[in-house]
């Protein structure tokens, strides 16, 4: 009977205009993105554009800066000679220019030093100064050239996958976005389905043939399966488009954590579908949904923000480790820490084990509450009452 309920949910939800439109948009974006990227082949290799405002700089200095910027920055100059300082500052704060090179030499920034730009300009100015001082000291051009020859420093990377790290980060971020949005979308569909059954009273007909917990399980699994199918379609389209257009060479290192992303998203679907179903059973009308839905967004959005921070920052912080083990946030945090290679195998096993346990426990609690609240109409059931119901109290 779980299968019958799940099939019904998949059939009726996939048939709705809203679902088809959203899926269509996602698939279109997944396919069009790489195609657009392929049509602008340099778009992935553009240098950062930087505009330097010159209050005072001669041609030689400018040429020196351009030499050192070559291959690092796409640098242009704007002449601010004779422009009042207030106007120059305004140009900085408005973002018209990234930095001002003034007499001194002095670099003027908006709020803080941009070290990438500063490095290029400092090196250029330093080289020029050495040249001038060398000439003052009476060194020959050959000696000066020898002094100015840069030291060749070899680089070696301990992580043999370092070249693919940008791709890994990108895929991890994509997985994080999917782990956030798919449970929210399908969780709300689950909730709407529960409320619909209560408000149309069809639940009174169903309960003559099926137990509430069976109904809940079928609903959760059916919509989780639909979410997984949408995920496969979207990611499949994206991958096919990327490989077809050679827009991205997916390194082998990415595939090591893709299964974790998939399992995490499925786990997130199961957890949040169950949670949203529980919330739906507390109300009798769609209009009352907003009264109960807010708390569920706290862990899901909090988990997303923390995971995003771990993706670009410290993936081994105490917070990151804790959220890896909490079932409501682990679907987002776990893939990120795996992508960053900042998690031990035992932690992965523990996280997935706790996620599975959390799903089972949540289904059990939700099932108990569901049994009592499913036939309750009128005012919504409060959280404290719901908790008492989960411990076997009567609804009255």
């Amino acid at each position, binding site marked *: 009977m779980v299968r019958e309920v799940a099939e019904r949910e998949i059939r*009726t939800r996939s048939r*709705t205009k809203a679902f088809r439109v959203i899926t269509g948009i996602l698939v279109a974006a997944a396919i069009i993105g790489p195609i657009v990227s392929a049509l602008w082949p340099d778009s992935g290799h553009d240098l950062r554009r930087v505009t330097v405002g010159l209050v005072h700089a001669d041609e030689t200095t400018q040429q020196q800066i351009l030499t050192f910027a070559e291959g690092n920055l796409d640098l242009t100059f704007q002449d601010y000679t004779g422009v009042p300082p207030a106007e120059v500052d305004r140009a900085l704060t408005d973002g018209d220019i990234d930095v001002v090179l003034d007499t001194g030499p002095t670099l003027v920034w908006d709020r803080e030093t941009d070290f990438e730009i500063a490095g290029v300009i400092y090196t250029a100015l330093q080289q020029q100064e050495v040249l001038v001082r060398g000439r003052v000291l009476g060194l020959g051009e050959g000696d000066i050239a020898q002094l100015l020859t840069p030291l060749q420093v070899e680089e070696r990377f301990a992580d043999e996958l370092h070249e693919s790290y940008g791709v890994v980060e990108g895929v991890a971020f994509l997985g994080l976005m999917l782990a956030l949005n798919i449970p929210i979308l399908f969780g709300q569909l689950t909730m709407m389905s529960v409320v619909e059954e209560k408000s*149309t009273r*069809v639940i009174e*007909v169903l309960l*003559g*043939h099926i137990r509430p917990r069976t109904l809940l399980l079928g609903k959760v699994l059916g919509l989780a399966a639909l979410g997984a199918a949408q995920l496969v379609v979207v990611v499949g389209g994206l991958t096919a488009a990327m490989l077809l257009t050679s827009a991205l060479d997916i390194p082998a290192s990415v595939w090591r954590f893709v299964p974790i992303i998939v399992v995490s998203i499925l786990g997130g679907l199961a957890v949040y579908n169950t949670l949203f179903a529980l919330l739906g059973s507390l109300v009798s009308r769609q209009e009352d949904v907003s009264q109960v839905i807010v708390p569920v967004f706290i862990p899901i959005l909090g988990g997303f923000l923390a995971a995003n921070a771990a993706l670009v920052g410290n993936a081994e912080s105490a917070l990151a480790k804790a959220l890896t083990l909490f079932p409501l946030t682990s679907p987002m945090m776990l893939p990120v820490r795996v992508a960053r290679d900042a998690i031990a195998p035992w932690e992965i096993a523990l996280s997935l084990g706790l996620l599975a346990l959390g799903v089972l426990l949540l289904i059990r609690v939700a099932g108990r509450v569901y049994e009592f609240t499913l036939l309750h109409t009128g005012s919504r059931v409060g959280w404290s009452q719901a908790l008492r119901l989960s411990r076997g109290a009567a609804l*009255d």
Partner: protein
Amino acid sequence: MKTIVREPVQPIATEEPPQRRRQLGPRPMTSSRFKPMTNGLRVDGLHKSFGDIAALRGVDLEVPRGRLVGFLGPNGAGKTTTMRGILGLVALDAGAVTWDGRTMSEEDRRHIGYMPQERGLYLGMKVHEHIAYIGRLAGLDRETADRRANDWADRVGLAERGNDLIQELSTGNQQRVQLAVALVHEPKLMILDEPFAGLDPVAVSMLSDVMAEQVEKGASVVFSSHQLDLVQDLAEHVTIVAGGETQATGTVADLRSRSVNRRLEIQWAGPVPAWSPPDGEAQDAPPGVSRFVVPAASDAAALIAQASAAGPLTAVSYEPPDLAEVFLELVRS
């Protein structure tokens, strides 16, 4: 002159229900109203309160196999609560619900066909799909559920709407779908809450035929309705509840005959004379006709003789009140 006299057996006022002490938990099956019965549905002494409101204060109901029973009562009498109690949708405070002599089980409930008062349908499902879905939940295999969904869609007049979404149907057609959903698994017990509400005469006729067919097949059918003329035509047996208690039960003829009143109608050949029977109460009547309500103990022959003496008659009828009037008598008392 045409004379119609339907004599009562003996005038009996409302049967006082036996006093019951309120008990918590299910009670052993006892009956002071019914003879022991081992087939079909039996409901004995149902009690249910919602907070301070006592919705059921001792409801008894009996629906043997192969019988159609009208379950009547004013608004708030406890009809829907009783039905939901039978279905297990409401936890009862006291009383017993049995089927074929044993406590109704979860398995027994799967063989109930239920039509709720408010439409209980998935509006986003297609007609055929919905009927088949309930069939599969009721335990039918896919092929049988599909076949029966087709059969029932055809039977209720929706064969051509099988692929339409339920939300696209009119209220009356949704009601037909509801009926098909209740019947797809060939239930042994049908519980229909206000099934005729919102139906046109064609649909009423269809539903009546379907109910009669199910009864002929041996199903127990109980339905509630406010359309008492329809109930009188359809159901041979009725149970009347008011104030959460069963007030009367029996055949329609029996209940009518037990009324303390009788209807006397006289069609005059000429102008209506200024005559009325002793202890009679005049009722509205069309021109040339007199209508009175008289005590059941009246001597019908004497009254007719008195009327004849007052003026020439073309027709006289003397009969118990119809079910609607009996219902009002009981409810008001």
